[in-house]
Protein backbone atom coordinates (compact mmCIF):
# COMPACT_ATOMS: atom_id res chain seq x y z
CA UNK A 1 0.00 0.00 0.00
CA UNK A 2 2.59 2.52 1.14
CA UNK A 3 5.01 1.74 -1.70
CA UNK A 4 2.45 2.15 -4.48
CA UNK A 5 1.40 5.48 -3.03
CA UNK A 6 4.96 6.62 -2.55
CA UNK A 7 5.81 5.78 -6.18
CA UNK A 8 2.90 8.00 -7.23
CA UNK A 9 4.07 10.77 -4.92
CA UNK A 10 7.52 10.38 -6.49
CA UNK A 11 6.01 10.89 -9.95
CA UNK A 12 4.42 14.12 -8.73
CA UNK A 13 7.72 15.36 -7.34
CA UNK A 14 9.55 14.37 -10.57
CA UNK A 15 6.86 16.30 -12.44
CA UNK A 16 7.39 19.40 -10.30
CA UNK A 17 11.19 19.28 -10.52
CA UNK A 18 11.10 18.79 -14.31
CA UNK A 19 8.50 21.53 -14.75
CA UNK A 20 10.57 24.20 -12.98
CA UNK A 21 13.71 23.03 -14.77
CA UNK A 22 11.93 23.36 -18.12
CA UNK A 23 10.55 26.79 -17.18
CA UNK A 24 14.00 28.05 -16.20
CA UNK A 25 15.30 26.95 -19.61
CA UNK A 26 12.44 28.08 -21.84
CA UNK A 27 10.13 30.64 -20.21
CA UNK A 28 12.57 33.59 -20.18
CA UNK A 29 11.65 34.36 -16.59
CA UNK A 30 12.80 37.38 -14.63
CA UNK A 31 12.06 38.98 -11.28
CA UNK A 32 9.70 37.19 -8.91
CA UNK A 33 8.67 34.53 -11.45
CA UNK A 34 12.33 33.56 -11.85
CA UNK A 35 12.79 33.51 -8.08
CA UNK A 36 9.76 31.22 -7.79
CA UNK A 37 11.03 28.79 -10.45
CA UNK A 38 14.47 28.65 -8.88
CA UNK A 39 13.17 28.23 -5.32
CA UNK A 40 10.53 25.65 -6.18
CA UNK A 41 12.92 23.61 -8.33
CA UNK A 42 15.13 23.30 -5.26
CA UNK A 43 12.18 22.24 -3.10
CA UNK A 44 10.91 19.64 -5.57
CA UNK A 45 14.38 18.17 -6.04
CA UNK A 46 14.71 17.85 -2.27
CA UNK A 47 11.28 16.22 -2.15
CA UNK A 48 12.37 13.71 -4.83
CA UNK A 49 15.30 12.79 -2.60
CA UNK A 50 13.08 12.57 0.47
CA UNK A 51 10.40 10.37 -1.11
CA UNK A 52 13.08 8.15 -2.72
CA UNK A 53 14.68 7.71 0.68
CA UNK A 54 11.38 6.72 2.28
CA UNK A 55 10.77 4.19 -0.52
CA UNK A 56 14.21 2.66 0.03
CA UNK A 57 13.69 2.57 3.81
CA UNK A 58 10.58 0.44 3.21
CA UNK A 59 12.57 -1.97 1.04
CA UNK A 60 11.36 -0.60 -2.30
CA UNK A 61 13.18 0.81 -5.31
CA UNK A 62 12.37 4.34 -6.49
CA UNK A 63 11.34 4.26 -10.15
CA UNK A 64 13.33 6.21 -12.75
CA UNK A 65 12.15 9.70 -13.63
CA UNK A 66 9.55 9.89 -16.36
CA UNK A 67 10.18 12.23 -19.27
CA UNK A 68 7.62 15.00 -19.20
CA UNK A 69 6.40 17.08 -22.11
CA UNK A 70 5.23 20.52 -21.01
CA UNK A 71 4.70 22.18 -24.38
CA UNK A 72 3.53 25.77 -24.14
CA UNK A 73 3.16 25.57 -20.34
CA UNK A 74 6.83 26.51 -19.89
CA UNK A 75 7.19 28.86 -22.88
CA UNK A 76 5.85 32.06 -21.31
CA UNK A 77 5.75 33.72 -17.92
CA UNK A 78 1.95 33.70 -17.70
CA UNK A 79 1.55 30.06 -18.79
CA UNK A 80 4.30 29.09 -16.38
CA UNK A 81 2.66 30.81 -13.42
CA UNK A 82 -0.81 29.44 -14.15
CA UNK A 83 0.45 25.88 -14.59
CA UNK A 84 2.63 26.19 -11.50
CA UNK A 85 -0.41 27.18 -9.43
CA UNK A 86 -2.32 24.16 -10.69
CA UNK A 87 0.57 21.74 -10.07
CA UNK A 88 1.03 22.99 -6.51
CA UNK A 89 -2.70 22.86 -5.80
CA UNK A 90 -2.79 19.30 -7.12
CA UNK A 91 0.10 18.39 -4.80
CA UNK A 92 -1.73 19.88 -1.80
CA UNK A 93 -4.97 18.10 -2.67
CA UNK A 94 -3.13 14.82 -3.20
CA UNK A 95 -1.15 15.01 0.04
CA UNK A 96 -4.31 16.07 1.90
CA UNK A 97 -5.85 12.81 0.75
CA UNK A 98 -3.34 10.82 2.80
CA UNK A 99 -4.99 8.97 5.67
CA UNK A 100 -5.19 5.45 7.04
CA UNK A 101 -4.60 2.78 5.75
CA UNK A 102 -1.52 4.79 4.84
CA UNK A 103 0.91 4.10 7.68
CA UNK A 104 1.73 6.73 10.29
CA UNK A 105 5.36 7.33 9.18
CA UNK A 106 4.20 7.97 5.61
CA UNK A 107 1.41 10.18 6.89
CA UNK A 108 3.92 12.24 8.83
CA UNK A 109 6.17 12.46 5.78
CA UNK A 110 3.27 13.71 3.67
CA UNK A 111 2.50 16.23 6.40
CA UNK A 112 6.00 17.65 6.26
CA UNK A 113 5.65 18.32 2.54
CA UNK A 114 2.06 19.53 2.27
CA UNK A 115 2.42 22.90 3.96
CA UNK A 116 5.41 23.68 1.76
CA UNK A 117 3.33 22.89 -1.34
CA UNK A 118 0.50 25.05 0.07
CA UNK A 119 2.88 27.95 0.70
CA UNK A 120 4.10 27.60 -2.89
CA UNK A 121 0.55 27.57 -4.26
CA UNK A 122 -0.39 30.63 -2.24
CA UNK A 123 2.74 32.52 -3.33
CA UNK A 124 2.13 31.86 -7.03
CA UNK A 125 -1.51 32.85 -6.67
CA UNK A 126 -0.55 36.21 -5.14
CA UNK A 127 1.68 36.86 -8.17
CA UNK A 128 -1.24 35.95 -10.47
CA UNK A 129 -3.53 38.25 -8.44
CA UNK A 130 -5.83 35.31 -7.76
CA UNK A 131 -7.19 34.75 -4.23
CA UNK A 132 -4.21 33.24 -2.37
CA UNK A 133 -6.39 31.54 0.26
CA UNK A 134 -9.63 30.53 -1.47
CA UNK A 135 -10.84 28.05 1.17
CA UNK A 136 -11.17 27.86 4.96
CA UNK A 137 -11.00 24.10 4.45
CA UNK A 138 -8.73 23.12 1.56
CA UNK A 139 -9.99 20.31 -0.66
CA UNK A 140 -8.42 16.91 -0.87
CA UNK A 141 -8.41 14.08 -3.31
CA UNK A 142 -9.46 10.93 -1.59
CA UNK A 143 -7.82 7.54 -1.61
CA UNK A 144 -10.19 6.44 -4.33
CA UNK A 145 -8.54 8.68 -6.88
CA UNK A 146 -4.96 9.90 -6.55
CA UNK A 147 -3.93 7.66 -3.72
CA UNK A 148 -5.14 4.58 -5.49
CA UNK A 149 -1.93 4.82 -7.55
Amino acid at each position, binding site marked *: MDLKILQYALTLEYLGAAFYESALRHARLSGEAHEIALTFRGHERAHVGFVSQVIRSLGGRPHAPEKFVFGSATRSRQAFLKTSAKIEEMCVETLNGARPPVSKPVLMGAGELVSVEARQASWVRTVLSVDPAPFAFNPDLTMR*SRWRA
Partner: protein
Amino acid sequence: MTELTIEQVDVDGAIREGAATIEGDPRASFISRAALGAAGLMSGGAALAALTGAASAQVSANDASILNFALMLEYPERDFYRQALTQGGAGKGEQRRFTETVAAHETAHAAALVKVLGSSAILAPTFDFYATVVDPAKFRATSITVEDTGVKAYKGQVPLLQSPVILAAALSIHSAEADHAAWIRRISGADPTYTGAFETPLTKDQVLANAMATGFIVS
Protein backbone atom coordinates in the same frame (compact mmCIF):
# COMPACT_ATOMS: atom_id res chain seq x y z
CA MET B 1 12.68 5.81 -19.50
CA THR B 2 8.93 6.25 -19.77
CA GLU B 3 7.67 9.28 -21.62
CA LEU B 4 4.78 10.98 -19.90
CA THR B 5 2.78 13.96 -21.00
CA ILE B 6 1.16 16.27 -18.51
CA GLU B 7 -2.13 14.76 -19.71
CA GLN B 8 -1.20 11.34 -18.38
CA VAL B 9 -0.36 12.58 -14.91
CA ASP B 10 -3.18 15.08 -14.84
CA VAL B 11 -5.72 12.31 -15.22
CA ASP B 12 -8.83 14.31 -14.46
CA GLY B 13 -7.78 17.43 -16.35
CA ALA B 14 -7.58 19.60 -13.25
CA ILE B 15 -4.21 21.10 -14.14
CA ARG B 16 -4.98 21.79 -17.77
CA GLU B 17 -8.49 23.06 -17.27
CA GLY B 18 -7.36 25.05 -14.27
CA ALA B 19 -4.47 26.60 -16.15
CA ALA B 20 -6.82 27.61 -18.92
CA THR B 21 -9.47 29.13 -16.69
CA ILE B 22 -7.78 30.28 -13.51
CA GLU B 23 -7.69 33.93 -14.49
CA GLY B 24 -10.62 35.70 -12.89
CA ASP B 25 -12.38 32.42 -12.31
CA PRO B 26 -13.24 31.28 -8.79
CA ARG B 27 -11.18 28.22 -8.12
CA ALA B 28 -14.15 26.26 -6.85
CA SER B 29 -15.97 26.39 -10.16
CA PHE B 30 -13.42 24.49 -12.22
CA ILE B 31 -12.78 22.09 -9.39
CA SER B 32 -16.40 21.09 -9.34
CA ARG B 33 -16.54 20.87 -13.13
CA ALA B 34 -13.34 19.00 -13.71
CA ALA B 35 -12.86 16.80 -10.74
CA LEU B 36 -15.69 16.53 -8.26
CA GLY B 37 -17.76 13.94 -10.06
CA ALA B 38 -15.21 11.47 -11.30
CA ALA B 39 -12.18 11.84 -9.13
CA GLY B 40 -13.66 11.90 -5.65
CA LEU B 41 -12.42 15.36 -4.82
CA MET B 42 -13.69 16.51 -1.49
CA SER B 43 -14.43 20.23 -1.52
CA GLY B 44 -13.77 22.46 1.44
CA GLY B 45 -17.48 22.48 2.15
CA ALA B 46 -17.64 18.71 2.15
CA ALA B 47 -14.76 18.48 4.61
CA LEU B 48 -16.61 20.89 6.87
CA ALA B 49 -19.81 18.88 6.56
CA ALA B 50 -17.95 15.67 7.36
CA LEU B 51 -16.40 17.28 10.41
CA THR B 52 -19.57 18.83 11.78
CA GLY B 53 -21.52 15.70 10.88
CA ALA B 54 -19.58 13.73 13.47
CA ALA B 55 -21.63 13.80 16.65
CA SER B 56 -19.57 14.81 19.66
CA ALA B 57 -20.43 11.53 21.38
CA GLN B 58 -18.49 9.71 18.66
CA VAL B 59 -15.31 11.72 19.15
CA SER B 60 -12.78 9.72 21.17
CA ALA B 61 -11.21 11.28 24.26
CA ASN B 62 -7.88 11.38 22.43
CA ASP B 63 -9.33 13.25 19.46
CA ALA B 64 -11.40 15.59 21.65
CA SER B 65 -8.29 16.61 23.52
CA ILE B 66 -6.50 17.39 20.26
CA LEU B 67 -9.49 19.30 18.88
CA ASN B 68 -9.69 21.38 22.06
CA PHE B 69 -6.01 22.17 21.66
CA ALA B 70 -6.74 23.31 18.09
CA LEU B 71 -9.66 25.38 19.37
CA MET B 72 -7.37 27.01 21.89
CA LEU B 73 -5.41 28.32 18.89
CA GLU B 74 -8.39 29.17 16.71
CA TYR B 75 -10.11 31.37 19.32
CA PRO B 76 -7.24 33.88 19.58
CA GLU B 77 -6.69 33.79 15.80
CA ARG B 78 -10.35 34.61 15.19
CA ASP B 79 -10.42 37.44 17.74
CA PHE B 80 -7.06 38.81 16.59
CA TYR B 81 -8.23 39.29 13.00
CA ARG B 82 -11.69 40.54 13.99
CA GLN B 83 -10.22 43.16 16.29
CA ALA B 84 -7.66 44.21 13.68
CA LEU B 85 -10.53 44.89 11.27
CA THR B 86 -12.15 47.38 13.65
CA GLN B 87 -9.09 48.85 15.34
CA GLY B 88 -6.85 49.74 12.39
CA GLY B 89 -4.30 46.94 12.36
CA ALA B 90 -5.77 45.50 9.16
CA GLY B 91 -4.56 48.57 7.30
CA LYS B 92 -5.83 48.89 3.74
CA GLY B 93 -5.52 47.40 0.27
CA GLU B 94 -4.21 43.83 0.08
CA GLN B 95 -3.49 43.70 3.81
CA ARG B 96 -7.13 44.47 4.55
CA ARG B 97 -8.30 41.85 2.03
CA PHE B 98 -6.01 39.36 3.74
CA THR B 99 -7.46 40.25 7.15
CA GLU B 100 -11.07 39.98 5.99
CA THR B 101 -10.43 36.62 4.31
CA VAL B 102 -8.51 35.12 7.20
CA ALA B 103 -10.94 36.45 9.85
CA ALA B 104 -13.70 34.57 8.01
CA HIS B 105 -11.60 31.40 7.77
CA GLU B 106 -10.59 31.37 11.44
CA THR B 107 -14.20 32.04 12.44
CA ALA B 108 -15.26 29.02 10.36
CA HIS B 109 -12.51 26.86 11.90
CA ALA B 110 -13.49 27.78 15.46
CA ALA B 111 -17.20 27.27 14.75
CA ALA B 112 -16.57 23.82 13.21
CA LEU B 113 -14.46 22.71 16.16
CA VAL B 114 -17.06 23.95 18.68
CA LYS B 115 -19.78 22.10 16.83
CA VAL B 116 -17.89 18.81 16.73
CA LEU B 117 -16.84 19.05 20.38
CA GLY B 118 -20.32 20.01 21.58
CA SER B 119 -20.49 20.38 25.34
CA SER B 120 -16.85 19.34 25.78
CA ALA B 121 -15.58 22.38 23.86
CA ILE B 122 -13.43 24.74 25.91
CA LEU B 123 -14.75 28.28 26.31
CA ALA B 124 -13.05 31.21 24.62
CA PRO B 125 -10.58 33.00 26.91
CA THR B 126 -10.36 36.78 27.00
CA PHE B 127 -7.52 38.21 24.96
CA ASP B 128 -5.68 41.51 24.89
CA PHE B 129 -3.68 41.94 21.71
CA TYR B 130 -2.41 45.41 22.62
CA ALA B 131 -0.92 47.40 19.74
CA THR B 132 -0.75 44.39 17.41
CA VAL B 133 -4.38 44.95 16.33
CA VAL B 134 -3.95 48.73 16.06
CA ASP B 135 -0.63 49.22 14.27
CA PRO B 136 -0.52 47.73 10.72
CA ALA B 137 3.22 46.91 10.89
CA LYS B 138 2.92 45.21 14.28
CA PHE B 139 -0.17 43.42 12.98
CA ARG B 140 1.81 41.98 10.04
CA ALA B 141 4.62 40.73 12.26
CA THR B 142 2.21 39.10 14.72
CA SER B 143 0.12 37.65 11.93
CA ILE B 144 3.20 35.91 10.48
CA THR B 145 3.96 34.37 13.88
CA VAL B 146 0.35 33.33 14.43
CA GLU B 147 0.02 31.63 11.03
CA ASP B 148 3.44 29.96 11.00
CA THR B 149 2.71 28.59 14.47
CA GLY B 150 -0.77 27.45 13.40
CA VAL B 151 0.64 25.47 10.48
CA LYS B 152 3.24 23.73 12.63
CA ALA B 153 0.77 23.07 15.46
CA TYR B 154 -1.74 21.31 13.20
CA LYS B 155 1.11 19.42 11.53
CA GLY B 156 2.21 18.06 14.90
CA GLN B 157 -1.27 16.90 15.89
CA VAL B 158 -2.64 15.41 12.64
CA PRO B 159 -0.78 12.07 12.88
CA LEU B 160 -2.06 11.66 16.46
CA LEU B 161 -5.74 11.78 15.48
CA GLN B 162 -7.64 8.47 15.50
CA SER B 163 -10.71 9.27 13.40
CA PRO B 164 -10.00 9.40 9.64
CA VAL B 165 -12.84 11.92 9.20
CA ILE B 166 -11.43 14.30 11.79
CA LEU B 167 -7.92 13.74 10.44
CA ALA B 168 -9.05 14.74 6.95
CA ALA B 169 -10.68 17.89 8.27
CA ALA B 170 -7.60 18.80 10.32
CA LEU B 171 -5.40 18.35 7.25
CA SER B 172 -7.66 20.62 5.23
CA ILE B 173 -7.36 23.31 7.92
CA HIS B 174 -3.59 22.77 8.15
CA SER B 175 -2.89 23.69 4.52
CA ALA B 176 -5.35 26.60 4.67
CA GLU B 177 -3.21 28.03 7.49
CA ALA B 178 -0.17 27.55 5.23
CA ASP B 179 -1.94 29.59 2.51
CA HIS B 180 -2.49 32.38 5.06
CA ALA B 181 1.11 32.23 6.24
CA ALA B 182 2.54 32.53 2.72
CA TRP B 183 0.14 35.36 1.87
CA ILE B 184 0.92 37.60 4.84
CA ARG B 185 4.62 36.84 4.41
CA ARG B 186 4.55 38.06 0.81
CA ILE B 187 2.59 41.18 1.81
CA SER B 188 5.29 41.83 4.41
CA GLY B 189 8.16 41.28 1.97
CA ALA B 190 9.18 38.12 3.85
CA ASP B 191 9.95 34.78 2.17
CA PRO B 192 6.63 32.84 1.79
CA THR B 193 8.49 29.50 1.76
CA TYR B 194 11.00 30.42 4.45
CA THR B 195 11.14 26.86 5.81
CA GLY B 196 12.74 25.58 2.61
CA ALA B 197 11.66 22.23 1.20
CA PHE B 198 10.47 20.84 4.54
CA GLU B 199 8.42 22.28 7.36
CA THR B 200 8.92 20.76 10.79
CA PRO B 201 5.98 20.33 13.18
CA LEU B 202 5.81 21.80 16.68
CA THR B 203 4.77 19.70 19.66
CA LYS B 204 1.87 20.69 21.88
CA ASP B 205 4.26 21.84 24.61
CA GLN B 206 6.23 24.02 22.18
CA VAL B 207 3.03 25.63 20.90
CA LEU B 208 1.74 26.26 24.41
CA ALA B 209 5.02 27.86 25.43
CA ASN B 210 4.85 30.14 22.36
CA ALA B 211 1.22 31.02 23.08
CA MET B 212 1.89 31.94 26.69
CA ALA B 213 4.94 34.00 25.70
CA THR B 214 2.74 36.35 23.65
CA GLY B 215 0.99 37.60 26.81
CA PHE B 216 -2.25 37.82 24.80
CA ILE B 217 -4.25 35.53 27.10
CA VAL B 218 -5.78 37.64 29.88
CA SER B 219 -8.07 35.10 31.48
